[in-house]
């Protein structure tokens, strides 16, 4: 675990010594702030529903910027050779990096808490619904980061890694819409289960379905396993 922590610590240092983390967090908070204000004035109700939905789409495009450098940067900077020859197991590298990226996600999430202040000052929001929404948001973000981390291992070009990740995440987000074009029950069901958006929608409404929780955790686990497997295979 010490070695995972060492990798984690190094990742955080690297994030905060490059402008990308600051940029991503700033854009995310400005965006969320805008959507929050807009939604509140439009609906006039003290809820985060619409804002969560917007935050979901926002991180689909922003988190790939966080995950893109995880392995692409190592390959590009020729430090991959170092990581792979240090006394580190591959899963320790993968986990340490993932936790580093998740920390950025948590910081982004914490930044949005400021929106809750006017909500509680001037309205009477449902706390449990909001908590469920945040849990869903973090789970969604973790799945996005894991997918991004996997794609980042495939190329040494960070831009390419980010673009592939955005495409994959958008596909996962909108796959639910394919339901409308299917008559086959099995296919409709499958698309529904695979959809990042539909699984997230439950959380927004305050539903913590274990199925949805499991879905995001499974996606993260599969992506990280593929990530580690790929690195091992390339050795």
């Amino acid at each position, binding site marked *: 675990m010490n070695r995972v922590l060492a990798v984690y610590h190094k990742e955080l240092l690297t994030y905060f010594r490059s402008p990308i983390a600051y940029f991503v967090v700033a854009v995310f908070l400005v965006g969320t702030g805008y959507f929050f204000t807009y939604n509140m004035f439009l609906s006039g109700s003290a809820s985060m529903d619409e804002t969560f939905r917007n935050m979901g789409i926002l991180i689909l495009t922003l988190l790939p910027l966080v995950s893109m450098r995880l392995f692409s940067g190592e390959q590009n900077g020729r430090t991959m050779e170092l990581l792979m020859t240090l006394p580190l197991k591959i899963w320790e590298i993968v986990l340490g990096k993932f936790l580093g990226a998740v920390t950025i996600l948590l910081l982004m999430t914490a930044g949005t808490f400021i929106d809750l202040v006017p909500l509680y000052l001037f309205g009477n929001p449902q706390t449990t619904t909001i908590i469920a929404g945040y849990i869903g948001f973090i789970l969604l973000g973790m799945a996005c980061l894991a997918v991004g981390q996997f794609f980042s291992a495939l190329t040494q070009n960070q831009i390419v890694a980010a673009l592939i990740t955005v495409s994959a995440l958008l596909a996962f987000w909108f796959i639910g819409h394919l339901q409308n074009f299917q008559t086959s029950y099995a296919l409709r069901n499958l698309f529904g289960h695979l959809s990042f958006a539909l699984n997230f929608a439950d959380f927004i409404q305050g539903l913590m379905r274990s199925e949805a929780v499991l879905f995001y955790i499974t996606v993260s686990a599969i992506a990280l396993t593929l990530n580690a497997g790929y690195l091992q295979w390339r*050795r």
Partner: protein
Amino acid sequence: MIALESVSKRFGSKAIVHDLSFTVEKGEIVGFLGPNGAGKTTTMRMIAGFTTATSGRITVAGFDMATENDEAARKIGYVPEHPPLYDTLDVTQYLTFIARVKGVSRGEVRSEIDRVATACRLESVLRREIYKLSKGYRQRVGLAQALLGKPEVLLLDEPTAGLDPGQIQETREVIRSFGEHHAVLLSTHILPEVTLICRRVAIISQGRLLAIDSPSGLQRASEQTNRVTLTATAPAESLRSELLSLAGVTAVVTKEVPGNAHMLNVECQTDARDGVEAAIARAVASRWDLLRLERQQPTLENIFLRYVSQSPPESSTPE
């Protein structure tokens, strides 16, 4: 400490390293010589565990690299060709990361970093960001990283490439002092470096081991042919035929001394028999003026070039 047993590496159908076997013992520095693309870096990477061998067995400090990679990694300090540095970190942060990964306990990280910083003369840049460092410092941070955690084996891939003469001197001293108690494999292009600090030399070309011996052993082995050079005032043609008529002289090349049309520089290839120089001296001096005569020891450079140029692609390894 390092043992390779008929190790091969192929990428697809292309063989990069072919049936390579050698060992590096504790307390010796072995120089690893070869032209570009000979498979030096690939071999280093296999020993370091970055890539796996297609066939054969590599053991480091008794651990099989194929199955006990993790245990072996603790015993290895590896400096790749391009120093693997995180540009945005400062030197201390970088070395702290490496030390912690190598299992140096929290309390000892500080003293361990001080130790390698002193050995690599990095004291003055410990707080500087790595991207601001000059090439010489970058190279030495790469070396310092490898020394952390007191590894038993040191793999150095061209550690002095791109350094100025003063830095090369300092780096060599670090390597030499390290070689007294550890096993060091040093790949390099710089041949004098090998003669200066290596106990043995391995020459590889096209992925095959051509020779492994001490520098003086290699020199002895190639003394079957010698070179005698002389300067004399004589007409070129008759000197040439005179020399070629002597027993033991196999080839003669004459060149005019610049600025003096009557003087000639002559290079004779001779075989190893004793007294060839004396015979040449007598023959030349009896008819013309002999100004200089010298028998030349083969340099490591000549030996290296001979081995490399003599290796036909599919021949077996000469001993």
